[in-house]
């Protein structure tokens, strides 16, 4: 089994609107998979489908090697926190967790206390969830998702509305769970800087379509400081770069070359290209933030 979870041409339509359009994703065990997309891009719909809460219009989901209706056998191996945490406000954190424990058939002594400890809520006592801060509710929501020791944790915008301290707490919790328990996590967010601190892989979704699936290394390579050359025929410039001894470069698109080394040698490159009569539009040292990269892929800031 190469992938813990994969989707094949997953599509969800609501009447005439296509919320998810032919998305094929691949998630390996132990990854923290960041799902990036603007509001309304289809992240929640996608996560609901893989969690078994929403039925795809077409396409297939494979989880633990099971697909189609067979997947129901292992769907309980997924812990979910979708949108706002689903909690009874008139009950304590303990009782909310106990409800889910009963539902999954867990009666181990100390189990609930352990979950409360993992999410940093061991000292809340009998306080009703309705009196919790947003951060505490989010953490309890993660705790609820952890009941039953799932193999995959699906978290939809878990840091939404949290203060910096709350964000850091959630981040630390997730990293610890991933490291200590080997938990695979799919996490959606539009706070990209925060996502970049934990995710090992990314998928960028826009208007229900998968724009890009890439690893952390690939994203870092794309977004790290580099020389950017804009020109009509990048292929003509490649022998020149080779002759100058550049090795860490790539053709970003049909008019752009990115060079990731010897960033102070842009003058030398210009001179050499000029000597070979290769026309360039511009050359500059730049570094693209994840946000800039995301906006470039998804078509700008109009509704980010």
């Amino acid at each position: 089994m190469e992938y813990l979870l994969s989707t094949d041409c997953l599509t969800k339509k609501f009447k005439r609107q296509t919320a998810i359009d032919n998305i094929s994703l691949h998630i390996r065990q132990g990854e923290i998979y960041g799902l990036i997309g603007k509001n309304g891009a289809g992240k929640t719909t996608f996560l609901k489908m893989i969690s078994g809460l929403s039925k795809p219009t077409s396409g297939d989901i494979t989880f633990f090697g099971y697909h189609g209706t067979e997947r129901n056998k292992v769907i309980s191996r997924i812990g979910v926190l979708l949108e706002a945490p689903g909690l009874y406000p008139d009950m304590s954190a303990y009782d909310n967790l106990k409800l889910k424990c009963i539902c999954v058939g867990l009666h181990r002594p100390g189990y609930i206390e352990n979950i409360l400890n993992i999410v940093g809520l061991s000292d809340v006592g009998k306080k009703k969830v309705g009196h919790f801060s947003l951060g505490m509710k989010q953490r309890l929501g993660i705790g609820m998702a952890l009941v039953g020791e799932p193999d995959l944790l699906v978290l939809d915008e878990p840091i939404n509305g949290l203060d910096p301290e709350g964000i850091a707490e959630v981040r630390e919790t997730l990293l610890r769970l991933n490291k200590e328990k080997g938990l695979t996590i799919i996490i959606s967010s539009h706070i990209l800087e925060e996502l970049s601190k934990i995710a090992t892989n990314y998928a960028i979704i826009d208007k229900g379509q998968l724009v890009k699936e890439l690893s952390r290394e690939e994203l870092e390579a794309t977004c790290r400081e580099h020389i950017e050359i804009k020109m009509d025929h990048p292929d003509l410039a490649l022998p020149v770069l080779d002759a100058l001894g550049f090795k860490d470069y790539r053709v970003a698109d049909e008019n752009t070359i990115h060079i990731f080394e010897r960033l102070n040698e842009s003058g030398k490159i210009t001179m050499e290209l000029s000597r070979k009569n290769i026309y360039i539009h511009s050359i500059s040292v730049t570094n693209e933030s994840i946000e800039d990269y995301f906006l470039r892929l998804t078509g700008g800031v109009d509704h980010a």
Partner: protein
Amino acid sequence: MLKVIKMDLFRMFKSKYTYIVLAAAMLMMFASVFMTQQDISYYQQTPSALETLRETGDEVNWGIYIGQVSPEWCTGAKIPLPELVSMNIQSKLLLMFLVAFIALFAGNEIRTGFIKNIAGQTRHRWELVIGKLLSIAIFTAVMLIVAILAIMAGSVLFFGYVHIQEAGKFIGYLGMQYLLHIAYGSVILFLVYLFQNVVASLLTGILLAAGILQVVDALLINIIPRLKEIADFSIMNYLSSGNVGLLSMASGSSLYLKAFLIAIITLILMGSLSGFIMQKKDI
């Protein structure tokens, strides 16, 4: 499925509103006995009003009411507890409290989003419906017991006695009303899953219990003229809520049989539809 049932029962007994609804039902039954006593005094002092009551006493009241009086109770003879209980069950006050409980109990699972935590944990989502139906059955039993205790307490306090007669028949009557209440509960559960909204299902449930569907009687008679041949035709005769109001201690076996069939059909139909919605609908 047993796990889901256990979870629902745990929540039912942990939730504050379970006890609030039970306490409210108890108080209302107590108040109803008090009002009955007040009405009896009034009828005893006003013979013309008692005569009117005798004339209209047989008319079926499809609505929700409080403190109903039987003309026989105004003669000074002891009021049998089964009749007092029967009158209060027929008033549909308990049905109203049952609607409130179900709308809160099942509706909160959807409103709070808790359902997202558990929907993926069961192989078949319809199991969640079974858990709710069983909780409704247990709550209904507790509510009926609590109501009878409140009526007994009221009877002792306001009439000075508890007069029990026809105990066997009374148990049979309670059993049938219990079944009808659960059947109506399944209708409310269906409304909760259909509307996915506590207020909408609560309002619709109370309006249906209050006999709002009588408005379609005339329409049905217009569409199907043969219905005119049925004496006092009303759609309420064929609904579980209507039969709650119709079935009294004095009812014959044919009415019991009809009520039984209606309750079973309603329960199966509404349970299946709720299960179907749960299974198919996106959460």
